[in-house]
Each structure stands twice: as C-alpha cells, then as structure tokens.
C-alpha cells in the first residue's frame, strides 16, 4: 500500500527515486494497530528507498500534515531540494473495538476516557453546543454526509463510492447522540505520498508546479473541558490565521478547500473556523449548496474523510494530494470549476493539533 503510493507519486511526477534526499512519514498508532513501532525505516524497505534519512511524525489524525510541514521546513531551510512525504495507516488488521481503542489514544485518557467519553462523544459535545447555540440540526449534519458520498461516488480511490439519501443518512443508529453512524468517518486502510521540491528543482520536474504559499500549525488543550467555547476549534482558527498571513490571502480568495470532516459536525465547524462563513452559518452553507462541488465554495469535492476514508496517518498527505490534483485540473469528475488557490485543513485528535496549508498553482 505504502510502496504503491510512493511509486505513483514518483512516477507520475517523473521524479527518479534516486533524487529523493529524505523521507517524512506520518503514521499515528501502528504500535496498537499492527504491533510495530519505528515504522519510517521499515517503510523504506518496502518502497525501495533504503538508506535515506527517514523520520516518523505523529500528531494523531494530523500526523500526515505534520510530516508534510516537516518536509516543507526541510526544503525551506535549504537542507534538501527534493523530499518525499508519505502517510500510511493500516487499521483493519485488528477488531473494530481494538481500532477504536487505538483511536481513543488521541483523546485525553485521564479525564475524558476515564468517565466513558468516547472519540465520537467528544465531537458530539461540540455538536450539541453548536445545535443549542446556533440551531444547527441533525439533518444539517446528515446533509454533509450526503454531499460527501455524492462526491465520492465519482472518486475511484474512495472507500464508499455510493450515493446515500438524506433519509439513509438520518437512520437513527446512534453512536454518541446526536451523532449517528452516517455522521462518522470509517475505519480505513490507506496510504498517500507526494514529492516536495525547492522552486528551482520543481521547474525541472514539471511545467505545472503547485506552491505551498502558506502553512500554519497550532494546538489547543487535549481536554475539551479546558476550552472556553465548544462551538469552535481554536487551533483551526489559529493555524488558519498563520497560513493566511503567510500566503497573503484572505478566506475569500480560497477557491475550494479540503477540510477534516472526521465527523459531519467537524466539517460545519471547520468552514466557520477557516473564515469561509460566519460562526453559526456553516450549516446554512451546506443546506444551500454553497459547499457542493459546483457551489461557490466547494468543500471536500472528492468526498472528504467521511466517504473517501480516514486512514489516520495518511489523511493529511492525501488531502494535500487532492488539493494538488484540483489545482492542476486533474481531478476528473471531481474537478471544481475555479482552481487557482486551494486550502487543506487537517486536525489531530479532538482538535488539539491543527495544520492549515494554502496551495497555489505557480502560474495563478
């Protein structure tokens, strides 16, 4: 899986493997999922890159994006010209219960898991706060799922390539009220890879390079009880402000975004935190089709974590690949109409880590 992703990333970009100078790997919890630590050099064995400096990066569900940031910093420092960034997670080798337990390690163990709060439960707390403050409904959240499945139906890499009806998304199979089965992203196996290069080197590889023009990372308390407002994820707000400032753009300039919809409510809140819509108006944007693939602010045009899958460590890298493909106009049936500037938003655990990257086609 990892070798296949690396192979596709390098061959599609016409980059000989021997030009790669270092490897940055995002994986979350292989210790509990496949009983294996120290995964970075192991993965190089599979990908035929033995010998290179390889480091694993972990920030729960944002592991992929922090690996990507490490790659960005390595290029920006001038240390390397060409690096590989890859993410991988194999989650189905263990039972669903065991996988859930592995995921729970991304939340606060002592004070949240200790009273029986679960990972979906934490996002349910955010959902209830949003519902009671702004009037967001379970149907609004279900519409996020319907949109995700609709977009994923034409994405050959998606885990679920089938549309669902609103009625089906509303099936009252509660996981943590008010979140139901269709509000949750699935347990997935997956890998993603991309090549980062310095400006000079990128021009040798391609006529259509995409630049990462802004990158921000921030953190928040692990424990939700230590946050003052549950209707927003403050790390998303902070990380996006840093990224916007670096890129010298505003939320209005972003043509489309790939956001971290581990749960449907997370997408609604992310579109508010990133400044696309006012606080409390994220649900309205879904209802009115603003965030649809052909809307004025497409969100997750390829299907999001919800329908493409959420192989934890791979997700942040996969998001960057999705933004890249949309930007260069290679997203096929999932292509958005305007594609000069795109944004990716990847967050870890219950929003304790957030990375926002803004990417722009070099000719745009």
């Amino acid at each position, binding site marked *: 899986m990892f070798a296949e992703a690396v192979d596709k990333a390098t061959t599609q970009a016409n980059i000989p493997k021997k030009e790669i100078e270092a490897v940055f790997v995002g994986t979350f919890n292989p210790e509990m999922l496949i009983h294996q630590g120290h995964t970075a050099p192991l993965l190089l064995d599979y990908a035929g890159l033995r010998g290179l400096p390889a480091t694993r990066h972990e920030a729960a569900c944002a592991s992929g994006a922090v690996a990507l940031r490490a790659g960005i910093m390595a290029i920006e420092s001038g240390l390397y010209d060409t690096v590989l960034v890859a993410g991988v997670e194999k989650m189905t080798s263990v039972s669903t219960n065991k996988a859930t337990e592995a995921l729970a390690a991304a939340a606060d163990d*002592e004070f*949240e898991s200790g*009273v029986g709060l679960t990972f979906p439960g934490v996002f349910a707390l955010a959902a*209830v*706060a949003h519902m*009671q403050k702004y009037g967001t409904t379970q149907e609004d959240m279900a519409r996020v799922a319907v949109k995700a499945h609709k977009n994923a139906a034409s994405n050959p890499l998606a885990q679920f390539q089938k549309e669902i009806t609103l009625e089906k998304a509303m099936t009252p199979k509660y996981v*943590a*009220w008010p979140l139901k089965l269709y509000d949750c992203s699935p347990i997935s196996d997956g890998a993603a890879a991309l090549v980062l290069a310095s400006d000079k080197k990128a021009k040798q590889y391609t006529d259509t390079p995409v630049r990462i023009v802004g990158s921000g990372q921030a953190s928040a308390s692990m*424990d939700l009880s*230590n946050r003052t407002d549950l209707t927003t994820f403050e790390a998303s707000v902070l990380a996006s402000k840093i990224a916007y400032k670096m890129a010298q753009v505003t939320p209005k300039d972003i043509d489309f975004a790939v956001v971290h919809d581990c749960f449907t409510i997370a997408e609604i809140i992310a579109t508010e935190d990133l400044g696309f819509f006012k606080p409390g108006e994220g649900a309205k944007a879904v209802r009115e089709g603003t965030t649809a693939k052909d809307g004025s602010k497409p969100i997750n045009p390829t299907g999001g974590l919800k329908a493409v899958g959420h192989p934890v460590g791979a997700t942040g890298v996969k998001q960057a690949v999705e933004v890249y493909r949309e930007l260069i106009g290679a997203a096929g049936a999932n292509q958005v109409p305007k594609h000069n500037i795109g944004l990716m938003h990847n967050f870890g655990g219950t929003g304790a880590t957030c990375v926002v990257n803004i990417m722009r086609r070099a000719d745009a």
Partner: protein
Amino acid sequence: MSEQPTLEAYKKNIQEGKYKAFRCTKCKAVIAPPLGTCYNCGNTKMEWTTVSGKGKLVSFTIIYIAPDEFAAEAPYIVGIVELEEKARVTARLIGFDPNKPEAIKVGTPLKLDYEKGKSGKTYLAFRPA
C-alpha cells in the same frame, strides 16, 4: 490537607466520594482537572480546595457505542460542567432521561454527585440542582 496535591489523590478522592479541586497558591484560581501549571497565572504550586458543588451544564452527549469497560452501562450521559468556581470538568450526568435528549438543555443548573458504575469505578457525576 497541606500536602502538595497529586493527580493520584485527586482520582482517589472521587472514588471515595470526597471531591476536591486544585487551587493555585498564588492567584487562587480553582483548577480542575488538575494540570501541573495554573492556566491563569502560570504558577506551579497547588493546594487542595473544596468546591460548592454547584455548576451548570456546558454540553453533553449520550454514549451508545461504548468501550468494553463501560459497555454494560450504555446508553449513559457524559457532560461538561462549569463549576461555580469557573473550572470545568467532564463528568457523568444522572437524573436525566437518556431517551429524551432534546429535553436536556445547556445552561441547566446542576449539583455535584457520584455514580457507582457497573465497571466498579465511581464517577464524578452531576444531577439537576
């Protein structure tokens, strides 16, 4: 109770039904759940304090799919409660009907209690005041 409070003792107090929070020795901010550093002034010295037990509901969820340890208790309600002393804690909610979630309102006044779980653990809990 003059000794430096520990996380272990914090949890033991809950098991014994004698909840106490941390308090910063410098700015007197009440800290719960306990961290090593006061999130108000940055001081690292803490002391024990009792709390009034009054609070209000910040948010809640009803857990249907629970980890093995708690599965026999599902569905159960977990909420975030803001204490009168301003600190917030995650706790079980009792005295509400898990089958009528629409009736549970953010802002509801609560009082501190405990719940003995089937897991054998005693949880910090709150019920309607």
